[in-house]
């Protein structure tokens, strides 16, 4: 059934016009209004987070009561040593694990996307499994292994090994989708023009799948930065940012956490906007 849709697109049909000619009935407003309310609902915790970074509380720990506006916590952003060191750990783990995951995952995605070979269905199933198994099962199974093996010290090494592991399937899936959508004849054409397979790969295939590799890297980076459940199992006494935040909730969060969250959020938004703009420009060219 999806073949119908793909065919239509392959022929290069223009984007279909809105299904219904606009009619002036109030029922037509239900869905758009609902959608915008949902967007508001989805964003509400972010508003709260940003707002409470300005809460002029008397102590050091945030409470739901609003005391008035202050910029104190923004000025004193690095005033909580535990948070700063946890954030540093996260900012080391995320890029390192993303680099490894993107290299290994891209190769895997290439293999799965463009070749037919024996052993492909089981590998596809393993990737599917990695995504379908609950994080808590993955986390507890990794901890079981590290406990039984004993010789890997539980800490930053086990965090890295685990983060690379859970990111690889996501990178592979992203790259696989892109490779499957590629026109194989481009690479054949390069080889017809006497490019050897490696040159054809680096000059033709790699630039074409570069967006997927970048997307895979960002995905792996964000997954690592955000991961709580698996990390909580394999981190031992090492603290990453989410783990530190979770631990701090018991006694109350310092407002600097909200400020840091706001900054990370703005970075993410900026990256997304830049990405959209770049894609727009590329589509226009």
């Amino acid at each position, binding site marked *: 059934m999806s073949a119908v*849709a*793909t065919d239509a697109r392959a022929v290069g049909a223009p*984007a*279909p016009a*809105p299904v*219904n000619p606009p009619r002036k009935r109030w029922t037509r407003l239900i*869905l*758009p209004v*609902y*959608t915008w309310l*949902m967007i508001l609902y*989805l*964003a509400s*915790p972010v508003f709260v*987070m940003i707002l409470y970074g300005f809460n002029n509380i008397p102590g050091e720990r945030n409470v*739901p009561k*609003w005391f008035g506006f202050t910029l104190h916590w923004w000025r004193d952003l690095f005033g909580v040593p535990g948070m700063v060191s946890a954030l540093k750990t996260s900012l080391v783990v995320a890029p390192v694990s993303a680099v490894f995951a993107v290299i290994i995952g891209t190769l*895997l995605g290439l*293999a799965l996307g463009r*070749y037919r*070979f024996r*052993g492909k*269905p089981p*590998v*596809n199933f*393993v990737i*599917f499994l990695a*995504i*379908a*198994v*609950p994080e*808590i*099962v993955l986390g*507890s*199974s*990794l901890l*079981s*292994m590290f*406990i*039984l093996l004993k010789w890997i010290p539980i800490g930053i090494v086990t965090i890295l090994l685990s983060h690379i*592991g859970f990111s*690889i399937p996501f990178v*592979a*899936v*992203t790259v696989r*989708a892109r490779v499957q959508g590629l026109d194989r004849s481009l690479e054949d054409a390069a*080889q017809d023009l006497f490019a050897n*397979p490696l*040159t054809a790969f680096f000059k033709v295939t790699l630039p074409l799948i570069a967006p997927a590799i970048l997307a895979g890297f960002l995905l792996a980076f*964000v997954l690592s*930065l*955000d991961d*709580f*459940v698996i990390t*909580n*199992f394999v981190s031992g006494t090492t603290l990453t940012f989410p783990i530190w935040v*979770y631990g701090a909730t018991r006694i109350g969060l310092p407002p600097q956490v909200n400020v840091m969250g706001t900054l*990370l*959020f703005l970075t993410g938004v900026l990256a*997304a906007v830049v990405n959209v703009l770049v894609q727009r420009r590329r589509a226009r060219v």
Partner: protein
Amino acid sequence: MATEGADAGATPVVPPKRGKSYGDRKRLVPYWLMLPGGGYLLVFLILPLGLLTFTSLESGGAFSGNFRFTWEFANYTQQIVQYQAQLVRSVEYSIIVTVAALLLAYPMTYWIAFYGGRWKSSILLLILVPFFVSFVLRTIQWKFLLGDNGLIFGPLKSIGLLSEHFHVLATPFAVIAGMTYSYLPFTALPLYVALERIDKRLVEAAKDLYSSRWEAFRHIVLPLSLPGVFAAFLLTFVPATGDYVNASVLGGPGTTMIGNIIQQKFLSELNYPEAAALSVILMFAMLILASIYARILGTEDSALAAGVAG
């Protein structure tokens, strides 16, 4: 380069035809590409799952820390009996969460996919943007929103619209609402992908044949979006069952889920065999679900891929 010479020797100089005349060397290419990833997943996914099962059959003193492998199947029966309430609760909550998330997300993604026009991806981005904030931090914000003296109920209480004893935190509602919020993107993305790739001309055709808007939806859009619904179900239900962050941040003693027990036994009580047994139960339940899904839709469905990529 070296490959050039080797290839020239193995294959005729005629440009290679597509899919044919691949030499032995080329036949090995996918295996080489697959080796690092496959090997990594074997060691850090399959092996741990095996060792988790191994751990779950150990026995020994929880305090001495000396566990021995004894085919201790009693771990399973004992845990199921002891934590029946939490197991049932996890399934109950997850079903409610999945259904709620599907009902909330479907109309929204339907509108974006069918009427979003050129703003489609921008609106979708608006939906996903809040999820740049880390999961733990987002969940905590609900505590501030739903807290007894928080942003919503604080003012209502001070003007006397709500009684002083009214509270939402620590109730099943708070946990279910928090989980629904947490997993909504996992529901929305596969739904959106499935809805978006429906050929809109099919709906027009139905209308040309005198079907009403509702009939067109019921007989064309809904059936064609079912793969997305299945993917959304899998991607929402599975993480929801294992969730323990929502229950521990927003819940109370009466809302403990199986994830909380596993976490506590593994990390606080250091009773690995019992924790592993519970984890294995969860794993098998999910494996059965995932296999059913893979049977019906395969493991390469793009709705699922898009869902996870989000």
